[in-house]
């Protein structure tokens, strides 16, 4: 692996390749900011390859750069498996690879494929926390709406599972529209679906759970002045927009999906591996990050605003 010129303090300056599913996503972009910030602080040059939310494009980009000199790499695959081939080539060259968020390859074959560590949040737990709060707020009965992300996205699938785990315990809760409605993370589709589902019911709908804040925030305007005005809306992501939504009362709660931690820790752990010359067996296979629930009552709202601030990039 490459070792570059030494930075201030005589410390080696490192070079790392990062890629995430797509920088258009607000969540992904925050992770980018975190990696860049911490890279600056820790003397790691981060080169970013945008997956543009297109597996093929991401694959092409990564393929083109695996032969360059990197000290370590951290990838969030747009889809599990698509980066397996290039990662194997990195393994052959002995470059540590970190899997961020979405699994790079299926879990049993992680090490075999050349992935050192998986750094990820627990999507199911996020959804569970958020849904549990929702259930408490609506008193365990009534109608709820479930707006999903992309049906093929592993994070979304986990969130669906988490939601169902909790709702399954409340027999008096009915999911409107026959179950989850997959909306591909697209705000317009979510909004159209949400609007239409609102028409379905003549009595007020008690709550709604969204797989991310952006979709939730695009849908809450539909509630103002309608018979569903009291609806309890919870979601996942808990970054600035979502936190503001909680503060302003648009969202009842949101689970923090700690993008800064995912991307920042990947960078931090990666540079430790390289600088300490750690061996692959010395590092754990998996680091699961916490995903605190934020609501008006939880008391951590201000803390989360501080941590998620772009100047800090801590959660």
């Amino acid at each position: 692996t490459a070792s570059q010129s030494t930075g201030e303090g005589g410390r080696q300056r490192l070079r790392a390749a990062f890629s995430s599913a797509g920088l258009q996503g607000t969540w992904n972009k925050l992770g980018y900011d975190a990696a860049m910030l911490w890279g600056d602080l820790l003397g790691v040059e981060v080169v970013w390859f945008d997956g543009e939310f297109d597996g093929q494009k991401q694959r092409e980009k990564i393929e083109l750069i695996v032969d360059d000199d990197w000290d370590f790499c951290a990838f969030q695959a747009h889809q599990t498996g698509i980066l397996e081939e290039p990662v194997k080539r990195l393994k052959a060259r002995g470059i540590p690879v970190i899997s961020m968020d979405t699994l790079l390859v299926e879990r049993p074959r992680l090490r075999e494929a050349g992935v050192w560590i998986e750094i990820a949040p627990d999507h199911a737990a996020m959804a569970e926390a958020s849904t549990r709060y929702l259930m408490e707020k609506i008193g365990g009965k009534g109608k709820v709406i479930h707006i999903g992300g992309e049906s093929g996205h592993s994070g979304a699938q986990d969130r669906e599972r988490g939601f169902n785990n909790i709702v399954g315990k409340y027999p008096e809760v009915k999911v409107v529209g026959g179950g989850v409605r997959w909306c591909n993370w697209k705000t317009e589709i979510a909004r159209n679906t949400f609007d239409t589902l609102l028409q379905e019911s003549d009595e007020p709908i008690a709550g709604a759970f969204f797989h991310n804040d952006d979709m939730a925030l695009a849908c809450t305007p539909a509630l103002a002045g309608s018979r569903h005005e009291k609806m309890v809306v919870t979601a996942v992501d808990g970054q600035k927009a979502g936190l503001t939504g909680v503060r302003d009362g648009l969202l009842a709660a949101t689970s923090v999906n700690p993008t800064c931690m995912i991307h920042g820790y990947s960078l931090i752990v990666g540079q430790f591996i390289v600088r300490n010359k750690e061996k692959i067996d010395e590092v754990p296979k998996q680091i699961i990050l916490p995903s605190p629930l934020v609501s008006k009552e939880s008391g951590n709202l201000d803390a989360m605003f501080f941590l998620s601030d772009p100047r800090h990039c801590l959660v």
Partner: protein
Amino acid sequence: MSDLSNSSPFFRRWDARDIAPLVSLAVLVVFFTLAAPNFLKVATITAILKQGSVLAIVAAGLTFVLLCAEIDLSVGMAALWCACLCGWLYQRWIGGGSSEPFMTTAAVLLVPLASCLLLGFLSGVLTVWSALPSFIITLAMMFIAEGSSRYLTQSKLLKIPEVLAVLGNDGLQSGGRVVVPYSAMLAAGVLVAGHVVLQHTRFGRYVYMTGGNREAARLAGVRTGRIVVACLVISAATAGLGGLVNAGRMTNVTLDQNKDLLLSAVACVVLGGTSLFGGEGGIGKTAIGVLTFTTLNTGLIQITWINDLARQLLTGVVLMAALVINGVLAKRR
């Protein structure tokens, strides 16, 4: 030789080709009435109006482009760009301030629209001047618009003026419910204006003739190049307007907006019966196309007896069935 059927305006108005798109729409309405118990309600119509309005605005402008036998691939991203610039200006000029001064707000809305005009003008001039198909010029413009939006917003979620949120979400109420959304009224205005321009102004006629036979129009003294430029400007302007309305509906702007707008808008125009080859069609047809498309989407959401993973398959099957029935009836006539 003369027979009333071909000379009377009434018969001509109800030409088989004109009715065809209505057939598809009717088939869909019947289907959903049977398949979704909640379909036939005022609320559904309101929902359709609300969901269709962005599409209607954008499709109206696109109709001009298709009528003159060109295409504009940049509509979706022009819409995005317009909304993003609006959000960015809002953040800069108004920021978190609770009041929105009238003049500043107007500027926040008008500057992005003006930038869309410029974008359309550029596409138009480059298309005419390079003599390349508008398909690839506007493709490049699409990349430019999307890239600019991304660079400008740095993938952040941006707020937009309150007035847009009202436009996108509110409407004339009746019994405590929004019945006629403002956005639908705006869309209706755009459609009517488009119809009037196309049917009752010289410019509109030139659009048809430029699309119908460009050489003939040129030889008759029509400046076909300018017509093409104007159509692309119109389409960029309506796209920008659509983008603002859409952002208003979502109450903020993010980069994932308007991703499907291009295909949907072209589909609406063609579904209505406007030809991709120019010269045939009109705004009335586009309105029917938009209604058909939106009814399809709204109706399908209301069907609850189907697994969500099969919904898209059903969309395809229902659309195909409506088209085929349309085909059968057209044959009969």
